[in-house]
């Protein structure tokens, strides 16, 4: 059962020749055959995966590792639909920077994972190809929009996975499925070849079994990209270097107020553990996250209406009648928010409140190195929970919207179980403080400290 291994363990085994990449890939494919009919994490399987594994160079940084990729990353040779009927059967003409870097590092793309159509949602229930089920309990949602990637990692159908986050789309499904989800700073990882959702917050990142695995993948996919002008020119550091000093960590009381009691208790227990590890943890205050729901909803809808205007079915894909209900709602609300006479009232005002939220974080990070920020107010909800609620995602993502609209980096990792479902704990840091977030999360996750 090599598919159960973490990325770090699998790399070690491959380098020591304990097993081959083909055996590792085969175990993942067998697991997909066995469990995916009941989970539906994958939309497409790479039929060439075994051949690629046979010829891969295992001395490369990700040599021979099977990685699942969210279906909004363009992948040469594999269909890319963003879980939408508009793009059914679409074969990309070029490779996304992220998957290009993974392939160059020797990874084997094992398949493309299900998501909310166009990444519009936090449940994977709005996929035009049917919902993904939570591997921890199939009656429950996996979260989203990177729900397929989170489920694929949780059910050991791959060694690691790639997702993208606009506001919670990596961290929240990771939380609901009980895996690690890491959102790098906006501009740290290239968006080139990622089907655009909200361009001012879209951030690709990994979903993994351990924090160390997330650090390893981020180092490979991060960096300046000439094809995405918003990528930062800052050098990419080694995210695995050990933590040198103890930190000051704040717990925003407004965030704890929206947590469900049992989940909150587990998060406070995790905070206590950080104290035991030598960090100073104390309560602090931030702008209430409810304001971020308003800002995010307006900004996201507006950017969606612009980004999805290109799908006309003339050059590729199907015409606009193929859009699902959720996409239509988002495009229309964005069109309205940007339309003449309403621009100042909605879009411009939202961008001003966004400035206030960014300034509030600046102030907080003047005092604290990191802040505690769980990705979800509670564990996964039941299949069907999104029915008739057009603001489902925004309400579920209340705790990760502020850090997303401010472009911060953050992580979600399991910290306990309520009624058999995983509960997560999270940390956010200033822009480009990936190393601090990963180091503290790694330290927290070590059993023997």
């Amino acid at each position: 059962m090599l598919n159960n291994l973490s990325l770090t363990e699998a790399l070690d085994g491959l380098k020591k020749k304990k097993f081959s990449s083909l055996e590792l890939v085969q175990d993942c494919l067998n697991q997909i055959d066995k469990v995916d009919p009941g989970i539906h994490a994958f939309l497409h399987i790479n039929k060439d995966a075994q051949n690629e594994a046979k010829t891969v160079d295992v001395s490369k940084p990700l040599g021979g590792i099977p990685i699942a990729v969210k279906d909004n990353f363009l992948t040469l040779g594999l269909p890319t639909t963003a879980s939408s009927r508009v793009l059914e059967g679409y074969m990309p003409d070029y490779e996304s920077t992220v998957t290009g870097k993974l392939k160059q590092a020797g990874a084997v793309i094992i398949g493309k994972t299900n998501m909310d159509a166009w990444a519009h949602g936090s449940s994977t229930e709005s996929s035009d190809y049917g919902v993904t089920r939570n591997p921890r309990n199939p009656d429950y949602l996996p979260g989203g929009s990177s729900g397929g990637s989170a489920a694929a990692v949780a059910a050991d159908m791959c060694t690691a996975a790639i997702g993208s986050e606009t506001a919670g789309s990596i961290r929240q499904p990771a939380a609901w499925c009980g895996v690690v989800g890491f959102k790098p700073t906006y501009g740290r990882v290239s968006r080139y070849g990622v089907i655009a959702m909200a361009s001012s917050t879209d951030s690709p990142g990994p979903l993994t079994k351990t924090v160390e695995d997330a650090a390893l993948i981020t180092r490979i996919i991060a960096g300046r990209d000439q094809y995405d002008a918003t990528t930062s020119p800052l050098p990419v550091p080694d995210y695995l270097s050990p933590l040198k000093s103890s930190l000051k960590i704040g717990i925003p009381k407004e965030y704890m107020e929206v947590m469900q009691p049992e989940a909150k208790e587990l998060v406070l227990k995790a905070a206590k553990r950080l104290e035991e590890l030598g960090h100073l943890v104390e309560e602090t205050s931030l702008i209430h996250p409810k304001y971020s729901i308003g800002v995010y909803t307006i900004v996201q809808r507006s950017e969606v209406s612009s980004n999805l205007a290109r799908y006309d079915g003339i050059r590729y894909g199907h015409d606009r009648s193929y859009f699902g209900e959720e996409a239509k709602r988002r495009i229309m609300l964005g069109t309205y928010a940007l339309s003449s006479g309403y621009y100042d009232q909605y879009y411009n005002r939202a961008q001003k409140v966004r400035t206030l939220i960014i300034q509030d974080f600046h102030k907080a990070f003047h005092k604290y190195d990191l802040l505690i920020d769980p990705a979800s107010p509670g564990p996964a909800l039941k299949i069907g929970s999104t029915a008739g609620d057009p603001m489902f995602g925004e309400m579920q993502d209340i705790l990760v919207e502020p850090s997303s609209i401010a472009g911060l980096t953050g992580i979600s990792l399991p910290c306990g179980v309520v009624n058999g479902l995983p509960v997560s704990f999270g940390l956010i840091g200033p822009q480009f403080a990936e190393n601090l977030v990963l180091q503290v999360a790694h330290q927290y996750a070590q059993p023997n400290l």
Partner: protein
Amino acid sequence: MDVAHVAKLANLPLKPGEQAKFQKQFEETLKTIAVINELDTTGVEPTSQVIGLVSVVRQDEVDLSRILPPPAANNGYFVVPSVFNAQ
């Protein structure tokens, strides 16, 4: 909100029943997001680029790597089937 008008602006065909359904849902959403009006934004500048990058440009260099070798290209020009057949 005039749903039919916005649908026209967005070039989205609506299915029967969607106009009335969306109307109600949009009104609820607009009520929820009105919360942003509670904060004072006097003198606050709007933010759209969060990591502070401005006017990113690259060198204007000719990329010949995309010009295919012969017979697909000749003298740096693409070779395509002729439009006027010289028969």
